[in-house]
């Protein structure tokens, strides 16, 4: 494990990404200690520009944007990771099962996956949310989780199928390993990188989708998250009145964690594909070779 971590961190992009994400996680955990104000309390004049007292200004209701951002991180991150876990768990289970068993099980699961894949997700979510009324972040997490696993299932299935052609699967079956062990112990460890990749991708997706849903007004007004911040900014016509800080803060928060998670995925890719690990060396070797060739050309022309 520590070996993997070291390879992961050797990639500069992954290290930066991990740092960003860890900062967010730290903010989420230590929110009560970092946020100067209660996010829902009216603590200042409406639409105050960023100042020493209110680093990111105030909303129309006079709430401190910075505190909202800090507390919002906790909600958004928990929902994002929660939904990401649901998406990854369902997608992986379905993908591996379809690949391992083949036959009619594969056909049935493929059918299910394709149906979920082509469902227009946002309209479905809107309808569901409208049906359920204003739902809290956890309900949103569940809804997103249950509708977004299809792509991950597809990818996992493809990877698992190529794994199944390797002789060691047949060899394990030949020594009589029970099916559940074949899947969980023999196949799963070889799929960790695609699962990790899927998970990180899902988290990015769910964070954005959650923010989108809440921005559209489907979240609970009692919750504090980046999405509800955007919703409030929208209803307060923040841009029109020039209160750019109310919009910029949550947007920047989403963009930055999106970047952080994407950078982490570069690292996962390197662990997954050992050939990627040599990319740094490839570039270095090319540089040196170019220099040497130039030298040799010069010597030859003399």
């Amino acid at each position, binding site marked *: 494990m520590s070996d993997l971590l070291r390879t992961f961190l*050797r990639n500069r992009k992954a290290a930066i990404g991990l740092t960003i994400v860890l900062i967010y996680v730290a903010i989420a955990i230590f929110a009560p200690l970092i946020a100067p104000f209660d996010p829902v309390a009216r603590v200042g004049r409406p639409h105050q520009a960023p100042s020493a007292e209110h680093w990111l200004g105030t909303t129309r209701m006079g709430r401190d944007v910075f505190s909202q951002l800090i507390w919002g991180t906790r909600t958004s991150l928990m929902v994002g990771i929660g939904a990401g876990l649901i998406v990854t768990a369902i997608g992986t289970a379905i993908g591996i099962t379809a690949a391992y068993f083949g036959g009619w099980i594969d056909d049935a699961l493929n059918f299910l996956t394709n149906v979920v894949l082509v469902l227009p997700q946002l309209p479905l979510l809107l309808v569901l949310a409208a049906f359920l009324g204003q739902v809290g972040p956890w309900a949103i997490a569940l809804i997103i989780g249950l509708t977004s696993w299809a792509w991950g299932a597809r990818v996992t299935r493809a990877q698992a199928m190529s794994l199944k052609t390797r002789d060691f699967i047949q060899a394990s079956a030949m020594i009589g390993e029970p099916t559940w062990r074949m899947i969980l112990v023999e196949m799963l460890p070889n799929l960790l990188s695609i699962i990790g990749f899927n998970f990180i991708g899902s988290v990015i997706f769910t964070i954005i989708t959650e923010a989108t849903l809440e921005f559209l007004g489907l979240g609970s007004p009692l919750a504090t998250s980046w999405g509800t911040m955007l919703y409030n900014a929208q209803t307060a016509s923040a841009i029109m009145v020039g209160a750019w800080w109310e919009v910029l803060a949550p947007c920047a928060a989403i963009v930055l964690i999106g970047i952080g998670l994407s950078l982490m995925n570069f690292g996962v890719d390197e662990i997954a594909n050992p050939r990627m*690990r*040599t990319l*740094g*060396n*490839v*570039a*270095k*070797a*090319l540089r*040196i*070779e170019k220099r*040497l*060739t130039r030298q*040799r*050309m010069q*010597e*030859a022309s003399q």
Partner: protein
Amino acid sequence: MSALLSVKDLRIDYLTSGEPFTAVRDISFEIQPNEILGLAGESGCGKSTVAYALMRLHKPPALVRNGHILFEGRDVLSFGDKELRAWRWSEVSMMFQSAMNSLSPVMTIFRQFYDMLRAHGTVTKAQAQERTAQLLEMVGIPADRMHAHPHQLSGGMRQRVALALALTLKPKLIIMDEPTTALDVVVQREILQEVLRLKDELGFSVLFITHDIALMAQISDRIGIMREGQIVEIGTASQIVTAPTHDYTRSLWDAMPLLAQRPEGMAHAV
């Protein structure tokens, strides 16, 4: 007679995240015109690295750190891009282990020849077809197969196509990297006899790379034994077979499963 190819003090490194790994350590050897030099050794000894580097086909993180590759007196390592492209395939060509490495699976056989001919000069489609037919017949493939795709041919036929491709521009040296390892013995014999016949007819040298020294002894004029990046012994085929001087060469012969009709290992009259 001056050597066709003269390699001097060639050193090739592989860059890693730690210390660079020296795959080829300051080796030197020559190939004369119309000669077959065999380069034998176990996996990882560096023989394939040498083969690729001779045509500057080695891929980073491999790096030619030092040395000279003199082809008819000119140092290949000092060629610019244009010079290199003109030289490759017309003076030196290569045959790879798996024909699927030299043949594109999505193009017809004819297309592969046509593309190569066009890359090295202007040629009309009709001319290219004529030349392709000629080359295919030369290696024993009916000309009408030129419109097939590689996967429609058997492994042996694919390697013959690879041989024909290597001969298209009448090179003076062909580098063969384990060309028959993936084929069964009968096809292997047929292809190698084809190579020898064409060599007598057209006149070219061969650098033949394999880990099967018994096979190598059958066709090479001289043999070099490589181990961990160095050539430990080099001599005529006859000498390497009957009176090897290096312990490693002797151990290679001892490890060969040969038919019991002959005494194990050495002492064959060639």
